[in-house]
């Protein structure tokens, strides 16, 4: 058995939430080790391939009870597989009360308070505004449909080098052209340039008090086989003065649940209040003739649209229903988005739920696949997800390549269902107008609701009974143990969460540095945006 190692700071997870603190702490002079469960791949490894064993190396499909969640599993985390939409959360989100009847975000957090941190992240990634002539066909079609229905529509800001982007639409596989700004291109190389060490295929298992004087926590981990993540190939432990937990909203609470007996308990909000960001996807089966006649669009002679697989996956979105004056649980954004073929299963061809997503009519619908358009509503859900007791190891049970079973259960409340119904009605009002398309939400029969935006399972807040973290992101009752990933975000955001997760991680860094310095490490805060 190997001897216990020691480091100033141990970061668990290398996505937005882990990479950003790792950079600031390393740049400030601390010794930093990053444990990452997934493999370390780079652009040449990110192939355009739907074969099992390609993208499935870096993306997990995590099935819970009533919900399925898509999440990254590699160095860089979900930033490697995300669709790069980089949006600030609307101001009303920070005032949300949910069904608990009190403000859910810390009182110090408002849009104005977070804007300087958003600025930093946008500079570091960086984020670009798409001009209309950079919005791909599906986004253009959605915009034209919005305009015809009396709605507005915006090009979506994206963390993409637009000059380098080939509009290949393979973002879930990681970017082969290094055009998408993942953590692999900014914070992580900047962190390693300052001496941080990344250890891929290292899955953290428990956090316990350290036994070495001066160190606060001892983290045990399992090394995983690169070819089959179900197989452990080694174990070890590292003691650290500060631990930054950023394993993702599906893993962070599970790791804390397993560690609770060792840590003398964890706040009761750990593993509760999970939000899927209110994600709700619909597929529009578009009538090409109506695209020509109603919208006057033609992308090539005789071809009005047929552009479903072309472009960056996210092009345009409507902010019309983000009205702060309207009631909570009725506000949402509606965004044009493309999902790879593995999700085609979920499209509904009929209105008979039990059989709508397979069979003869569905096959007919598949023949019109280039004329599909998908839209994602990001609504206000009710934080109703709850994790059951943790599995023996890891955050879920891996049953096959990329397929995991979680103890997460999600039973949408009447509030959440109200938001989804409002979003469905709006999608139809825009896209079914005068027969432009036939629109139905993804079937919930095969996989429950589906989210690519897991949040809030270890959230921050002012109320100790309903939030696990204080407003600095420190786990209540456990000095020096910080959580900086999507699990810290208190509520759904009505937009894609990556920029907010990153901004909250940036915001947490001065406090993490201060806590680390108090533990005796010579470290200071103030590094510029990584270059």
């Amino acid at each position, binding site marked *: 058995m190997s001897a216990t190692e020691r480091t100033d700071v141990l970061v668990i997870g290398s996505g937005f939430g882990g990479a950003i603190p790792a950079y600031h702490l390393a740049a400030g002079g601390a010794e930093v080790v990053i444990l990452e469960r997934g493999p370390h791949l780079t652009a040449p490894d990110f192939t355009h391939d739907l074969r099992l064993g390609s993208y499935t190396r870096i993306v997990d499909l995590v099935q819970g009870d009533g919900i399925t969640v898509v999440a990254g599993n590699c160095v860089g985390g979900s930033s490697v597989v995300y669709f790069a939409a980089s949006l600030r959360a609307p101001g009303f989100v920070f005032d949300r009360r949910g069904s608990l009847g009190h403000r859910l975000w810390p009182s110090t957090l408002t849009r104005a308070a977070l804007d300087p941190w958003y600025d930093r992240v946008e500079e570091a990634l960086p984020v670009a*505004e798409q001009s209309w002539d950079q919005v791909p066909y599906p986004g253009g079609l959605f915009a034209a449909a919005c305009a015809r229905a009396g709605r507005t529509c*915006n090009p979506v800001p994206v963390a993409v080098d637009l000059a380098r982007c080939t509009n290949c639409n393979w973002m879930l596989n990681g970017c082969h052209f290094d055009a998408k700004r993942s953590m692999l291109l900014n914070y992580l190389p900047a962190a390693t340039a300052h001496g941080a060490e990344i250890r891929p295929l290292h899955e953290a298992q428990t956090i316990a008090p350290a036994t070495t004087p001066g160190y606060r926590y001892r983290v045990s981990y399992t090394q995983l086989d690169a070819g089959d993540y179900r197989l452990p190939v080694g174990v070890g432990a590292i003691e650290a003065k500060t631990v930054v937990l950023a394993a993702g909203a599906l893993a962070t609470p599970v790791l804390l649940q397993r560690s609770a007996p060792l840590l003398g308990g964890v706040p009761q909000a750990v593993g509760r209040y999970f939000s899927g960001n209110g994600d709700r996807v619909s597929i529009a089966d578009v009538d090409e003739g109506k695209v020509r006649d109603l919208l006057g669009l033609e992308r090539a002679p005789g071809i009005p649209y047929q552009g479903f697989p072309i472009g960056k996956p996210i092009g345009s979105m409507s902010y019309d229903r983000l009205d702060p004056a309207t009631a909570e649980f009725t506000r949402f954004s509606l965004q044009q988005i493309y999902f790879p073929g593995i999700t085609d299963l979920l499209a509904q061809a009929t209105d008979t739920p039990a059989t709508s997503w397979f069979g*003869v009519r569905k096959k007919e619908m598949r023949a019109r696949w280039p004329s599909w358009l998908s839209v994602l509503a990001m609504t206000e859900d009710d934080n109703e997800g709850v994790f059951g007791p943790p599995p023996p190891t890891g955050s879920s049970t891996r049953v096959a390549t990329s397929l995991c079973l979680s103890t997460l259960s999600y039973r949408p409340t009447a509030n959440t269902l109200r938001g989804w119904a409002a979003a469905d009605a709006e999608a139809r009002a825009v896209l079914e107008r005068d027969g432009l398309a036939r629109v139905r939400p993804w079937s919930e029969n095969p996989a429950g609701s589906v989210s690519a935006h897991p949040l809030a399972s270890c959230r921050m807040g002012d109320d100790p009974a309903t939030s696990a973290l204080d407003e600095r992101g420190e786990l209540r009752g456990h000095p020096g143990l910080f959580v900086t990933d999507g699990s810290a975000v208190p509520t759904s955001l009505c937009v894609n969460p990556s920029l907010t997760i990153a901004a909250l991680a940036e915001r947490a860094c001065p406090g993490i540095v201060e806590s680390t310095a108090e533990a005796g490490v010579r470290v200071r805060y103030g590094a510029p945006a990584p270059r």
Partner: protein
Amino acid sequence: MVPGEKRYGGDVAIAGAAPGPGAVQAGAVELLNLPDLGIGILLPELALLVNTRALAYAATHGRVLLPTQPPFVALRFTDRTALAGELLTPGAPDRQLYVLLALFAAAAFDTAAHLHTAAAVRQRHPGLAWIGFPVPDADGLWRFPDYSYGRRLASEHPLTTPGGHPA
């Protein structure tokens, strides 16, 4: 899951309910046997499970099944569809198993998940051809130099903040 035409006269496994190739022609069985997936060894047991449910379905719906055929194969297509709906309904016993089988059958058709995509497209994989999946460049990568209508097609929200964000 993705019905198709019979492969030959007397093909009983495929009901022949829709023109063109279905999940079987697209490689569903090859995919289920893919070593990476690690479930090939379980397939005979899963077939047994499906056939048991088909027998029960026939008994409760008054269907007489040809004894010379496996029970699921002996069901008419509409009954196969109804039974699949029952097996895949939330709350049904063993549902997670059937969902996995449905997922892989569809993935064989929609994504040729047992093949490298560029090669599959060039070989006219039945599912990718059916959905009209685009052809890659010669190096096996996709690029779309023509990708935009190239003009403003809506007005932006009046409260949009600098950078293009909602207020």
